[in-house]
């Protein structure tokens, strides 16, 4: 064998004939270019995904911390209840001059001359105006505190908070910035004594709407979103499953079912804002439901989510092999029993996956909610779905329109929370699909 090849090689020693040029190099170059275009396209997409997430996280992670000023507050009876009327008239405690307590404590801590009004004003501006309600709640909950001195952790005002996080450019001339030099001095002294410190921002998760960034949170909006998701789940899942069972298993093939089919596919692609107009005109104007209520939002989102669920459920039902149906029918089950006892349970993972994806979509939807009046300034937790409420993405929209630096940070923080919810839901859907996926 080796001899032969070597002899063959030795016999054909003619110089290799130049191959006919069929442009192979050019064609391969074109091939490489084409492949590179494809790769570039994917990289562009991933690049923007990265930039988007980076923007949100880099602007938003600071929102999870909030500067607090811890001061010994003297709950002096002279200020809260000078005429000792609280026994007879408990509302007196609600209207007492609490900011004065904060002022006195600050004046003492910073060693300012109480007569120097402008200086005192600058000092009190460092503490959030929400200190009034905070102290009031403390006193109302425990009137025995009056006359004692207690250490209270007060929220710092939004701009002070931003300055403490290093987000305010201090090289700008003093007149053009919201934090004055004197306040920065004080911030330093307070930080050194440990009175001013950053702590985890629980308020971001519990507070409602507020015009003061330090007292604004997503708690109320999240509850509104939760109500709506529950309504969507309770309505859209059964209706969607029932509709798909009818269309997939019972409906005769005729013009009408064709029409329903086209109709559902079209509804899945109708702009979401159109659903908002539908809700405004039918649920609010015609049926007289309350504006800004989670129940209307839930109904609108249900109608919006239904096509998604129906399409997913039909695909899942279609994937169950006919042999299952034949076996059940052959054993004497009725058609209804076959479907509800055998086909539907086997299709359930697919149905649930579709439902979760539909819910995730509904959770992030903003436009229809703007039209049904959920852009409301809601401070208190809604007690029921009939009460005025707002939703997480709508809260993000409202904050995005605020100019203050501290709101930009909170908007990003809220987006991070929303994205975490969505990622968890989508991961759940993926895991569910993996776990129960069955190849027939």
């Amino acid at each position: 064998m080796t001899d032969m090849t070597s002899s063959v090689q030795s016999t054909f020693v003619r110089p290799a004939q130049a191959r006919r040029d069929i442009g192979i190099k050019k064609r391969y170059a074109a091939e490489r270019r084409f492949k590179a275009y494809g790769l570039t396209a994917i990289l562009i997409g991933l690049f923007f995904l990265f930039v988007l997430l980076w923007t949100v996280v880099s602007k938003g992670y600071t929102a999870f911390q909030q500067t607090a000023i811890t001061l010994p507050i003297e709950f002096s009876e002279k200020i809260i209840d000078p005429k000792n009327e609280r026994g007879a008239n408990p509302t007196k405690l609600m209207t007492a001059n609490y900011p004065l307590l904060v002022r006195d404590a600050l004046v003492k801590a910073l060693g300012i001359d109480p007569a120097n009004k402008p200086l005192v004003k600058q000092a009190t501006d460092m503490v959030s105006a929400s200190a009034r309600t905070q102290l009031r709640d403390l006193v109302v909950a425990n009137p025995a505190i009056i006359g004692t001195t207690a250490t209270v952790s007060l929220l710092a005002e939004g701009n002070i908070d931003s300055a403490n996080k290093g987000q305010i450019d201090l090289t700008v001339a003093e007149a053009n910035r919201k934090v004055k030099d004197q306040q920065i001095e004080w911030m330093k002294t307070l930080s050194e004594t440990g009175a001013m410190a950053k702590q985890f921002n629980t308020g971001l998760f519990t507070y409602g709407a507020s015009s003061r960034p330090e007292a604004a949170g997503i708690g109320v909006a999240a509850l509104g979103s939760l109500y709506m998701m529950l309504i969507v789940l309770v309505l859209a899942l059964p209706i969607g499953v029932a509709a798909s069972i009818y269309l997939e298993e019972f409906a005769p093939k005729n013009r009408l079912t064709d029409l329903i089919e086209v109709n559902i596919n079209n509804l899945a692609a109708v702009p979401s804002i159109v659903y908002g107009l539908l809700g405004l005109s039918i649920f609010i104007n015609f049926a007289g439901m309350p504006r800004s209520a989670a129940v209307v939002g839930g109904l609108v989102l249900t109608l919006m989510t239904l096509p998604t669920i129906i399409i997913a459920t039909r695909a899942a039902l279609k994937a169950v092999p006919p042999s299952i149906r034949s076996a059940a029918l052959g054993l004497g089950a009725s058609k209804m029993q076959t479907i509800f006892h055998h086909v539907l349970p086997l299709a359930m993972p697919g149905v649930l996956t579709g439902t979760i994806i539909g819910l995730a979509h509904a959770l992030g939807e903003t436009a229809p909610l703007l039209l049904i009046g959920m852009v409301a300034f809601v401070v208190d937790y809604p007690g029921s779905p009939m009460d005025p409420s707002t939703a997480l993405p709508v809260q993000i929209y409202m904050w995005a329109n605020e100019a203050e630096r501290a709101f930009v940070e909170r908007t990003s923080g809220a987006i991070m929370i929303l994205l975490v919810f969505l990622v968890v839901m989508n991961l759940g859907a993926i895991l569910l699909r993996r776990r129960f996926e069955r190849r027939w």
Partner: protein
Amino acid sequence: MSTSLILLIILIVGLAAYFAGRARATASSKGKLSALHSLPGYHGVYVAIWAVLPAAFVLAIWLLASPFFIENSVRSALPDTVKSQGTATIELMLGQVMQVANGLKRLNSDELAAVTSGSSNLRDALAAKGVPMANAGEPYMVEAAQHYNSLRDGSRWVMSVAVLIIAIAGAVFAIRGISAPFRARNRVERVMLGTLLVASSIAILTTVGIVGSMLSEAIRFFQSVSPSTFFFGTVWDPRFSAAGSGGTEGQFGLLPLLAGTLYIAFVAMLFAVPVGLFAAIYMAEYAKPVVRGIAKPLLEILAGIPTIVYGFFALVTVGPFLRDISAQLNGLVTGNYVNFIQAQSVLTAGLVMGIMLIPFVSSLSDDIITQVPRSLRDGSLGLGATRSETIKRVILPAALPGIVGALLLTASRAVGETMIVVLAAGVAARMQLNPFEAMTTVTVKIVNQLTGDLEFNSPQTLVAFALGITLFAITLCLNIYALYIVRKYREQYE
């Protein structure tokens, strides 16, 4: 009795009926369950359906219909002096009467007596209970309100009794029909089938609701503004006027909004289509399974991000970035550091919307490209074509109709997109061609016209519905045509 209490009672009756029916069926089998046509549970459900459905139906009808009858009765009981003042006044008075009726319920008997005898002021008495009134109120109002309250209470009482009787009667009727050969399962299944049918008709009802509601409001709009000035008007200036001033009519020209919508959608498609299409081709034809398994879900994350997040991204990152870089460029070329791209511009909105659309284009086209039969690919490769030649000359032409369908679906999404343009495109309605300036879209104006305090009979708010139906019509045409193409394409290769 409150409605929810009545519902609860009906459900309890239904539950009891279920057990009664089951027990009756078991008893009628005389110890031999195989003698029954249907399982005892089906008999139970059959009885429960008879108990719950008719009662719930009557309850629903009553709740819907009774307010009309009661209002009519109160309206006819109003004094003639009011009735002669035209419908608007009557409706106003009726509203007040209901307000009073609501307030009277909160008064205790002494206060009520004082109000009816006229010895205490109605307005003060109600205000003390947290019911504000626009004017002092007239004596006939108290009378009408009491009439209203008594009718309402009576109606509610009769309704509760009637519904309860119907529920029990239904259950009793059904129980009496139960015997061993009774075909309970077939009956129950027929009801179930009916329920399924009703559920599937909701999809149709939604479309009917969308078209009907928007058409009716749009027609009200077209009564005050002629369709030709709306559809062909070139100036958008709706001019919110204070309520009741009856001030100047605004101008409602659709064209500037439509131009902005299409322009922004065009810029978005210009960006999304090449990127998305090339990504899909790479993913379907070149990528190794590992790369595909990572890149595809990552790109799909982009599709799962809510549009409000994209809007925020445009507002705080892309817009300022484009503005600053344009200032830098301008400075390098002309020495004058003035930005020529506005932070809110067609380009900003289009670019960010394009990012959002990349995954739509790529996953729709990916599906379509992978549907092209293997044999076409193998034939071309076997003849010596390179992969890219196969893609360009064989696969893409074969997949073209499907891809066009996918692009139309994407375009429909671009036209209907709201939150990105609300935050990134601006509100100035003008017709111009410079992509660096702000333009506005149909969706932005729908949001603008309908947020805030509303008065539902002014053209300023009703125009939103005319805009909405225009938007719906555009996307409907795009969707149906696209779905038709995609479907036909699928049939071709199946």
